[in-house]
């Protein structure tokens, strides 16, 4: 599913030349603080038992706070896909302003 999200959005970089990956420093700065908050939420939710994962259907590699590797990838890939999406929309609809 992470692969699906990557391939579902990455083509926008090349097809529409949205230049998000080229602006990787800005993307990194945009994603990191938000992802850290959501990873903290994920850590809490896992420990509180809000959600859990089927160990047979995940890689079984765990990062800090006992969070599966897939979750760390999720909080990298999903925000990147969101940025690629908005930049693609802005490329196609150039008259739609985001700044004043």
């Amino acid at each position, binding site marked *: *599913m992470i692969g*699906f*999200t990557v391939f*579902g959005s990455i083509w926008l970089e090349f097809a529409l030349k949205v*230049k998000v990956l080229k*602006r990787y420093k*800005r*993307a990194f*700065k*945009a*994603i990191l*603080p*938000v992802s850290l*908050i*959501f990873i903290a*939420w994920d850590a809490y*939710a896992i420990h*509180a*038992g*809000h*959600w*859990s*994962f*089927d160990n047979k*259907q*995940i890689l079984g590699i765990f990062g800090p706070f006992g969070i599966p590797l897939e979750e760390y990838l999720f*909080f990298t890939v*999903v*925000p990147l*896909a*969101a*940025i690629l*999406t*908005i930049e693609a*929309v*802005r490329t196609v*609809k150039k008259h*739609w*302003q*985001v*700044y004043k």
Partner: protein
Amino acid sequence: MTYTQLAIFAVVVAVTLDLYVIKTGLLKRKVFWTSYAIIIGFQLLTNWWLTSRNIVMYSPDAILGIRIASAPVEDLLFGFALVLGVLVNWIRLGASNKQR
């Protein structure tokens, strides 16, 4: 706190940041809602995959029990807060940048 409470809280924080703190005003822009419409379609698809196969499972005590495409309705709030948070930050960083 339950997943429901946390998800509502996260949306309130993201909306407050967009409208009143960082003042990106994305919620007032067509470009955001068009992007979000694209993103939510893919989210429903991946949510359905991950929950219908029980890759991710939720504690009945942490959620309302309302499910959309097999996933808890809270996931949509979670996703909305994540996407809005990242895009607010991305656009904020672009405002102080030559290459918008």
